[in-house]
């Protein structure tokens, strides 16, 4: 009996440890940012600008920067991913589509830092020449590169959700003489949109959480960005840039506020996904 119980406790201990780590990450950050909560600065910081000269350590510009870069990336990636997913999932399920799908899968293995590197030495000069304004390190460049980075995630998710559409429905549509576009809009989209929305949310989370591309090619200026060609700093890049190891300084504590923001945003995304999945499972 003991021999049966022992493994169970080991397995349970391991999972409790894993859960503990997840909670410890949040706990650690809240604990280290606690003085800011206690002084009631936390909520104000989320909208204030960043100017240490005037004792303002707000993260407003970083939050705006994060959201604008991630949204631009999703806006670029969404139509392309839709098109590619239709190509692979509906128009050419074999042959060309399979090759394309393998390429998309291989894209997931390309390291982020590579995208950043190519962004710096290829895209940034191009953008600088094209718009002849600023250094070329701007929201626009970062958004494009990030769009390329998240498209494999999105495409694979879309293809996955197309396969959840019941085959009899598609056969029925074929029998009624529907063409591809009708099949897509009247059968596939109504059946698969929830699962596609899941993919969209997860890709948005991925775009927000990416550090290297934003750090390398968005320019990292701390002002509120005014246009797409302005340089901006994201929350992730802000964490990556700070080297101050002084436990007591406010600059150092703002890092943990960034961390809490990112944790909260991605966490809400995951819970939203859960909610979508629980409501309408296509099976």
């Amino acid at each position, binding site marked *: 009996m003991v*021999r*049966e119980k022992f*493994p*169970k406790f*080991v*397995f349970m*201990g*391991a*999972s409790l440890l*894993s*859960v503990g*780590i*997840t909670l*410890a*990450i949040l706990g*650690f*950050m809240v604990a*280290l940012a606690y003085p800011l909560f206690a002084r009631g600065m936390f909520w104000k910081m989320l909208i204030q600008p960043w100017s240490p000269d005037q004792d303002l350590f707000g993260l407003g510009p970083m939050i705006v920067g994060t959201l604008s870069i991630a949204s631009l990336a999703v806006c670029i990636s969404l*139509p392309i991913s*839709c*098109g*590619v997913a*239709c190509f692979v999932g*509906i*128009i050419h399920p074999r042959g060309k589509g399979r090759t*394309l799908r393998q*390429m998309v899968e291989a*894209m997931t*293995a*390309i*390291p*982020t830092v*590579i995208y*950043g*590197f*190519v962004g710096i*030495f*290829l895209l940034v000069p191009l953008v600088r020449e094209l718009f002849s304004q600023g250094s070329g390190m701007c929201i626009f460049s970062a958004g494009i590169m990030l769009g*390329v980075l998240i498209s494999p995630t999105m495409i694979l998710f879309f293809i996955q959700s197309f396969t959840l559409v019941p085959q009899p429905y598609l056969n029925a549509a074929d029998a009624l003489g529907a*063409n*591809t*576009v*009708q099949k897509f809009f009247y059968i596939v989209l109504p059946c698969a949109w929830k699962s596609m929305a899941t993919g969209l949310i*997860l890709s948005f989370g991925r775009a*927000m*959480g*990416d*550090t*290297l591309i934003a750090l390398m090619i968005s320019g990292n200026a701390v002002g509120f960005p005014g246009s797409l060609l302005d340089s901006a700093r994201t929350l*992730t890049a802000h*964490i990556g840039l700070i080297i101050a*190891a002084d*436990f007591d300084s406010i600059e150092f504590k703002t*890092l*943990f506020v960034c*961390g809490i923001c*990112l944790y909260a945003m*991605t*966490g809400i995304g*995951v819970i939203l996904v859960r909610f979508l999945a629980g409501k309408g499972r296509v099976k």
Partner: protein
Amino acid sequence: MKSSLWDKGFHLFAWGCSLVLVAAVSIILGFLIVKGYHTLAPSLIFGDTPFWEALLLRRQVFDGLFPAMVGTLCLIVLAIVFAIPLGLFTGIFLAEYASPKVKWLFSLVFDILAGIPSIVVGLFGFSITLFLHHCFFDRLYPCLLISALSLAFLVLPYMIRTTQMALENLPMDVRMTAPSLGATKFQNIFYVLLPASLSIIVSGIILSIGRCAEDTAVIMLTGAVATAGIPRSVFASFEALPFYIYYISSQYADHSELMKGYGACLVLIFICMILFVLAHWIKQRLAQKLLYRS
């Protein structure tokens, strides 16, 4: 007629998008290859040092990628050693022991862990180091061990998910045979279920290795530096390939250093692709085995 026009437009749109994507990938890879292929030589990795002396660690390599590659290797090995038992056990618990409610809650937590940006995990590692440094060990600085631990936390959810999925998708007859012969639950897991799902788990582990090899954000905050040589202990700082690429892109001094950056990019892509193909191959072989057995 109108609908056929729509149909054509739709096809055109799908073709166009696919071409844009293929073009983007080709441009990215082509750019690196065109700029960097002539750096691909033994001297890129070993510098001026003869390679057998470098491999035997008899002489230090100063102007090559060798220390960065060794650093990445050490990092991967350590991180995977930490992550495998934890991920495997947790996956087994979720698939075989947990009640539906516990499973729901725990997998929600692991989904959140999977969604946490890697830089936040790095920040966690960094703040733990500072905390320990202030409170317990004066001589602890960001180092290989901390980086490896943080990376292990990063890949943990993938490991858990793969193990859980592999176990849950086993067919009923595989699952039932051993218990009907009188095996205990643990014997069943250890002798039947785990071996049967081993290839999927292994391919998941290989994909996790790929993630360890490419991640930069975590190690940036937890101890990777530009020049450290080969790490002497787990408490030393280290070099790593992705960090080297990042460092070169922002701080390169001259043309030859930049060229070495291109070379490093190609080496890193090559390593990641090999890992990816390996994982794929193992999965495919499993699929074939299942196909021909039944």
